């Protein structure tokens, strides 16, 4: 049967268009109940159980199916996802509405529907002859959808009765809309609110906590005092944005100060790109990552970003006066030019809430069911949740979702979602940091694994097509110890004409990962392998990463080779790219390779090859540095783990050998050669990597800091920066140079992937190369896989596919990769931080020498070179009288009582794990030297430990 649907639409030009769509109604859509004879085999796939046994509800003891409406699905998805809830009918009307309103919830409900055990059934009621309803006069779209849902619920109940006379199966309509429920009951449909139903599930009391608390009545109990101004409706905001009264941007809360945030204004508007918001009222309930509309305040109310570090620690909920006091603290006299555009949030355009990991701060009042939840991410405000299991959840890492933020509430309201486990447990903490950094870490699905080659695997005739046999060459790999995913190998030999042939052989991952299949999609999604301290989250399944693609010694492996002919002064005469088969003769560690090069009596093929490589690498490095490549420094901690408990026993900073830089040099060379080649061949859709030059203002802090030590740092070009960093030596202070390099690293921009057709600045600032890409680690980076494919097409070794030459698709891939890389880096740092905590937990309290990296208004940030550990020393504590602090932004320096602190000053600090507050276990540092009465603490006699141990993980050239 054919129906037509008519609706009106406003066109972009401002006109009104009438659109007519044909809509077909069918009579062969099944109800989804297994064993229903009326609709027989009309349906397939996951279906409802014929006799649902659970959950036992006191409200409706007989077997039943659930039929939720849109709002229930949107807000109570956490409940629906629980294994206890099964046999749910999801109507097409509901699904479509959910899809329009929230993409993440839509994805979650799709996942649930696909789970066979949940017995969720999607009923296409919009196309069913008997359940289709047309919008009636005087009815708006929402009313119509509500009616469609009721009609479907009614149809189901009648349909199930027909199934058999003695059947007691019922369909229960779940809605939180009172009017809708009344109407349903009138029409004879059993209907309950979500809360009623969940509370009736006597067997599963824990579900109640997961209910999103949306009931408006509940809020009345709270103090009636309105804290926040109202958010303007979306239509007003859009008008305001159009006319320029309001600005639209992404809300970014400050990590260091909960009363401060910045909003990044969207669009190309050069001025007012970043707006500062200060004070609770101006933040007006915006949460990190929300898209908000802000109004600029008059210039007289502009403020400067405060350098105060403030954490929300108040246990008392609505202590607004105290807040105001704190806000006053932020507003100190500052010079005119420091003032930045300041605004206030007038409305929220789009919430970007997600479930947050964190811990429960149990309420002081016994038997209270309301508790505050402190998220792990400091940028997220604390969330008030209601739970009866507070005592069990205490000390656990839990996940909580925000439901709403009423105007009269200091904190947003939320509900409990999941218990991850005990705090401090390695598994729990790892899970937390993976979740918090959005790292996909589930095991690979069956669909993905199905695209792996069948074992035992061997190279066939077909594989040899378009491939050169390089098995006779003396190739070897050099990697950190314990590395299982070897993606590069090298060789060097002398040619008859006296020149040298150098080859870089990279694992041919694109041979195994074919474009478009599930394996490809999953690796594209993951984007990168994430290395945590004791765990590796692979981008590709282990069979590939540690076996078939890993260029292990003495086995035939497929490779993508880049072979140069060079003269002895490392000038490239010829470059050749080819797919190949290699047989690595040795897998060496950096130390082993170094040993071979250094020992004069070894003269075998591998060693001569290594020596040749080493000699060329030194020349290449010199050339590169002459061109202005930067050598920067960042303190990195390596843990030495106990082999059984996997607890960190010791840590050390990375040791650099000649061989590290040898491998690095050739990888850089290969990346640059490949970048040139693919850009030559695909000027519009080459995937490249660029590192933009930082704006001069970024260097301010570095220049100021150096000046305080009477050193001059030139920052006009990379070369002058590199040279002035080299010159910046102090005979009395050898570590100064490293500190300057660490500071310089902080001034840098993030290197990013991009599609050559979408940009015209290709320059890589750090490497001083006009063009650069990633080619050498396809096992752990997806960008390299794409580059492999491009190169393979360029040399005619593989065929192309449409997405490869679509620059918008490529730009999307780049966007995801950049995001994943950033998140992977954060996750790595978080993992290091956690292991540092574990380390200091076992070690107790230590005193160490440290250098000041930054000076803040009420604190100093110090670096402890020995552990590569950075921490903040606060000078204001809650229960102590505040010391006299004078902060000078120009030098920058901080004067406490009579002692002045400058950047790079040497201090002595006490490091300890602060577990007094289980919410936030943290490394606490306090000043030991110089001694300031009342501030510093007397030095303890703590012996320093001996640190040594092999480095554990492979991490290199993330340039």
């Amino acid at each position: 049967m054919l129906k037509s649907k008519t609706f009106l639409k406003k066109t972009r030009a401002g006109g009104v268009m009438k659109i007519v769509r044909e809509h077909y109604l069918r009579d062969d859509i099944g109800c989804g109940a297994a064993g229903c004879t009326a609709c027989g085999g009309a349906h397939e796939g996951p279906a409802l159980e014929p006799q649902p046994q659970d959950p036992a509800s006191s409200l409706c003891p007989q077997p039943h199916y659930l039929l939720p409406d849109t709002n229930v699905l949107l807000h109570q998805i956490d409940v629906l996802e629980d294994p206890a809830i099964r046999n749910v009918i999801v109507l097409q009307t509901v699904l479509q509405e959910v899809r329009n309103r929230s993409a993440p919830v839509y994805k979650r409900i799709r996942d649930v529907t696909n789970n066979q055990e949940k017995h969720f059934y999607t009923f296409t009621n919009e196309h069913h002859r008997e359940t289709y309803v047309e919008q009636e006069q005087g009815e708006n779209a929402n009313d119509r959808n509500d009616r469609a849902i009721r009609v479907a619920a009614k149809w189901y109940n009648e349909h199930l009765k027909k199934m058999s006379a003695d059947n007691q199966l019922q369909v229960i309509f779940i809605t939180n809309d009172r009017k809708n429920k009344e109407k349903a009951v009138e029409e004879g449909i059993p209907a309950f609110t979500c809360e009623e139903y969940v509370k009736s599930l006597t067997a599963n009391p824990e579900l109640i906590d997961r209910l999103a608390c949306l009931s408006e009545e509940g809020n009345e109990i709270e103090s009636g005092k309105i804290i926040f101004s109202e958010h303007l409706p979306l239509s007003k905001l859009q008008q305001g944005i159009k006319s320029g009264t309001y600005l639209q941007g992404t809300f970014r809360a400050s990590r260091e100060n909960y009363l401060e945030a910045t909003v990044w204004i969207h669009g190309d508007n050069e001025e007012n790109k970043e707006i500062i918001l200060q004070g609770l009222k101006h933040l007006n309930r915006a949460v990190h990552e929300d898209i908000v509309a802000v109004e600029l305040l008059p210039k007289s109310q502009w403020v400067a970003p405060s350098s105060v570090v403030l954490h929300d620690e108040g246990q008392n909920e609505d202590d607004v006066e105290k807040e105001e006091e704190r806000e006053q603290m932020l507003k100190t006299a500052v010079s005119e030019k420091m003032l930045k555009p300041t605004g206030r949030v007038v409305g929220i355009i789009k919430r970007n809430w997600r479930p947050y990991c964190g811990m429960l701060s149990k309420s002081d009042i016994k038997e209270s069911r309301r508790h505050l939840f402190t998220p792990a991410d400091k940028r997220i405000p604390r969330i008030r949740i209601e739970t009866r299991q507070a005592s069990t959840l205490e000390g656990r890492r839990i996940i909580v979702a925000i439901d709403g933020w009423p105007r009269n509430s200091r904190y947003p309201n939320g509900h409990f979602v999941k218990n991850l486990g005990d705090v401090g447990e390695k598994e729990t903490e790892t899970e937390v940091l993976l979740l918090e950094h959005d790292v996909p870490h589930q095991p690979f699905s069956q669909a993905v694994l199905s695209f792996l080659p069948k074992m035992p695997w061997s190279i066939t005739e077909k594989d040899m097509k378009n491939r050169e046999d390089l098995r006779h060459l003396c190739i070897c790999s050099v990697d950190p110890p314990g590395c299982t995913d070897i993606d590069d190998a090298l060789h060097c030999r002398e040619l008859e004409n006296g020149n040298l042939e150098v080859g870089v052989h990279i694992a041919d991952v694109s041979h195994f990962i074919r474009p478009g299949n599930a394996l490809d999609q999953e690796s594209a999604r993951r984007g990168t392998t994430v290395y945590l301290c004791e765990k590796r989250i692979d981008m590709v399944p282990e069979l590939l990463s540690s076996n078939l693609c890993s260029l292990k010694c003495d086995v035939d492996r497929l490779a993508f080779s880049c072979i140069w002919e060079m003269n002895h002064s490392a000038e490239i005469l010829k470059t050749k790219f080819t797919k190949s088969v290699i047989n690595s003769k040795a897998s060496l560690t950096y130390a082993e390779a170094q040993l071979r090069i250094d020992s004069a009596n070894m003269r075998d093929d591998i060693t001569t090859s290594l020596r040749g490589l080493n000699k060329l690498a030194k020349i290449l490095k010199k050339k590169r540095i002459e061109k202005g490549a930067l050598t920067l420094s960042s303190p990195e901690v390596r843990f030495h783990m106990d082999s059984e408990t996997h607890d960190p026993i010791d840590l050390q900073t990375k040791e650099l050998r000649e061989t590290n830089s040898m491998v690095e040099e050739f990888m850089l060379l290969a990346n640059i050669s490949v970048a040139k080649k693919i850009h030559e061949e695909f000027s519009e859709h080459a995937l490249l990597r660029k590192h933009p030059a930082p704006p001069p203002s970024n260097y301010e802090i570095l220049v100021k800091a150096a000046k305080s030590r009477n050193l001059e740092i030139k920052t006009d070009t990379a070369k002058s920066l590199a040279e002035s960093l080299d010159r910046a030596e102090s005979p009395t202070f050898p570590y100064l140079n490293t500190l300057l390099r660490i500071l310089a690293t902080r001034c840098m921009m993030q290197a990013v992937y991009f599609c050559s057709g979408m940009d015209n600045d290709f320059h890589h600032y750090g490497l001083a190369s006009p063009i650069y890409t990633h080619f050498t680690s396809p096992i752990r980076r997806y960008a390299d896989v794409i580059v492999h494919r491009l190169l393979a097409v360029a040399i005619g070794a593989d065929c192309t596919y449409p997405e490869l030459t679509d620059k918008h698709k490529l730009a999307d891939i780049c966007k995801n990769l950049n995001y994943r890389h950033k998140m992977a880096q954060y996750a790595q740092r978080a993992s290091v931080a956690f292991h540092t905590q574990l380390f200091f937990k076992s070690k107790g309290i230590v005193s160490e020498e440290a250098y000041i990296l930054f000076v803040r208004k009420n604190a100093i940030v110090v670096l402890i070179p020995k552990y590569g550990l950075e921490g903040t020393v606060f000078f204001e504590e809650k229960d102590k009288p505040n010391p006299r602090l004078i902060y000078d932004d120009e030098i920058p320096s901080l004067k406490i009582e009579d002692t002045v602190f400058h950047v790079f000053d040497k201090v002595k600090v006490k490091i300890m794990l602060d577990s007094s507050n289980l919410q936030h276990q943290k490394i606490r540092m306090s000043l030991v030297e110089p001694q300031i009465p009342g501030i510093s603490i007397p030095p303890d006699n703590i012996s320093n430990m001996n640190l040594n141990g092999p480095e554990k993980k492979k991490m290199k050239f993330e340039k």
Partner: protein
Amino acid sequence: MASVALSEAEKVYIMHGVQEDLRVDGRGCEDYRCVEVETDVVSNTSGSARVKLGHTDILVGVKAEMGTPKLEKPNEGYLEFFVDCSANATPDFEGRGGDDLGTEIANTLYRIFSNKSSVDLKTLCISPREHCWVLYVDVLLLECDGNLFDAISIAVKAALFNTRIPRVRVLEDEEGSKDIELSDDPYDCIRLSVENVPCIVTLCKIGYRHVVDATLQEEACSLASLLVSVTSKGAVTCLRKVGKGSLDPESIFEMMETSKRVGKVLHASLQNILHKEESLGPKRQKVGFLG
């Protein structure tokens, strides 16, 4: 104009019949042929109607679009007419063959609507000087069997009756910039009052008498005819003589009287049938082009 070739004897036969108030198909001089009207036949228009008068077959679609009011009438919308003579109607219309006739009909339509009372153009105004509705009235000639003007005017009236214009609201913010908001209820729309929309009654002078609703054959016997546009109350809004013959003032007066009389009846029955059709509601089985 479409025409048929008639022999002298046939013409004489027709003329003698008219003289006796008995026409070839059995009608009297003031009788219309059976009129079939159906509205809402084209779903993607704002209003549409199809009218069949004998074998004359007309389809009219009204499309409401947003535009800016004319300078001289800042707080009114306006109507635009376009007549398409399909080559389906007669092979003469092929190529640009129908253009002259089309323009002629469109001009006639402009004339009969160019007065304040026909349609309340003020209801079409959204915001003075800035936005108004423009109703594009597209007429499609599907088949010609005489009396085109009458059939077209009936179809236009029916289509205007059927027209539903989406209700829009003008939102104004502090700066005075205006934004248009569309109601999300498709039933929330403006209807036009067609009370005073005139219909054309064409009177053909055959011999000493005149007939209404002439067939193609009868038109061939007539040298001059008079187009009178009459409202439902009998008011004449426009008068136009077509054909190469002449009319004496006395017969013009006589013809106007006839047209008023016939026009009132025509309006009444049209109004009646339109309301009847509408009362059937959306469940009505549409006949469309397959019936």
